[in-house]
Every structure is written in C-alpha cells, then in structure tokens.
C-alpha cells in the first residue's frame, strides 16, 4: 500500500496511521515519524507561522521517486508519505512518514531513510514568520551530514 501526498489542509496523523496499518494486513511492524512545526525559543524570536511553497511538477514526483528508492532498498509492505504545504502554525504536523514491513528493521530504517532524503528529494521552500516579519530558511549543514549516513 503506497500513499504519497501533498496536503494543503491540516494533517491529522491519527486519520492516516490507523487506515494505513489496516491496509497492510500481515505486517510485523509499523514505524511512523511525525514532524511538527516548532516554536523556537523566545531568545531566537519565536516562530509565529511557517509557509511552505512547492513547485507542483517537481515536488510530488520527487516524493514518488524517493518512495521508489525506499521500496527498492528495504523490504516493505507499505509506505505512507504525506507532506503539508501552505501556511502552518507551531504545533501543527508538517510531515508524516510511515512504513509497514514484515520486519522491524526494514520499517524503522525506511522511515529514517525517507526523512533524511525528503528534503533533498522533494522541493520545498520554507519561510518563517517571526515578530519582525517573514524570513526564508536557508539550507543547513546538518542535512548534508544526514545524507552522508546512507
């Protein structure tokens, strides 16, 4: 079961995860990661909102290509990858990746792999609204370090 989506409305993990597990009968384990919009420490200027823009012809195909790689690399029964676009507020889920497999290691590693690669595989541009206005988020050194793990 493969469910790859961009979502422009509230992402409610509970409505995705239960049906996903149900759709993969016989699974041994499901690993799920849900990322939320953080409200950074006050000293850094709290994040009031986050906006994600995407480029339709690249972003969704990028997620599908990443799903292909995950299915090729791990022994999976199902993969769910749902990413928000649009304006989000702190505490709102921004991404949900869930992998179902016969064996635990495949499920956990597939989620880890997808999360590490999602930012480079799918094109998203993010800006944060702080007290002094909107700021574009630049690429980070951490992302390159995470990719070097695979």
């Amino acid at each position, binding site marked *: 079961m493969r469910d790859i989506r961009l979502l422009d409305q509230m992402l409610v993990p509970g409505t995705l995860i239960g049906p996903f597990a149900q759709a993969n009968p016989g699974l041994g384990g499901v690993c799920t990661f849900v*990322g939320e919009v953080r409200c950074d420490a006050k000293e850094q200027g709290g994040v009031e909102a986050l906006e994600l*823009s995407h*480029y339709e*012809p*690249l972003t969704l195909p990028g997620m599908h290509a990443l799903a292909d790689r995950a299915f090729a690399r791990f022994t999976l029964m199902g993969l769910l990858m749902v990413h928000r676009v649009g304006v989000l507020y702190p505490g709102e889920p921004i991404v949900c990746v869930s992998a179902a497999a016969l064996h635990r290691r495949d499920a956990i590693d597939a989620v880890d792999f997808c999360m590490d690669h999602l*930012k*480079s595989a799918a*094109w*998203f*541009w*993010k*800006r944060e609204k702080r007290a002094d206005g909107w700021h*574009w*988020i*630049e*690429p*980070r050194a*951490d*992302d390159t370090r995470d990719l070097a793990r695979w």
Partner: protein
Amino acid sequence: MIVITVVLLGKLADLAGAPTLTLPAPSSAPLDWAGVLAALPPALADAADDPRNRVAANGALLADKAELQAGAGDEIALLPPVSGG
C-alpha cells in the same frame, strides 16, 4: 501562446513581487539562459544568476543552465536551494 512563463520559487518570488512572470517569446531563435537573465528586472536577474539556483524547463530539471532553449508556451522555473528544516 506567444509568451514564456517564468515561475519563481522561494525568495525569488519575493524579489519579483509575484510567483510568475511572463516574457515575450522570441520570434527567431529560442531564448537561452543569458537571454532570460537579460529579460528579467536587474535585481531579480542578479539573484537568479546565483550558481546554486537550478532551472527546470516544462517541469524537467536541467543538468546545466546552458541547455536552456525556451520558446513560446514553455514554462521555465527558477529554483533556489531548498530550505533546511
């Protein structure tokens, strides 16, 4: 269609003040990367020329901006590096 659509992503959209621009399609030879830069407002052209930016033509990423050959009806996307998170 007699125009080329330029889709601007991330901070390039901010700079342009709009998510898309249209350029008149050249009547003779197709527009190359230098031609696109020349047709953009100067401040936007400067930002677009950042070597970290990528270019897509009709939804396909170009390996090299030198490959660009755009004509009437084509959509060019200018893609700054994606954000960390």
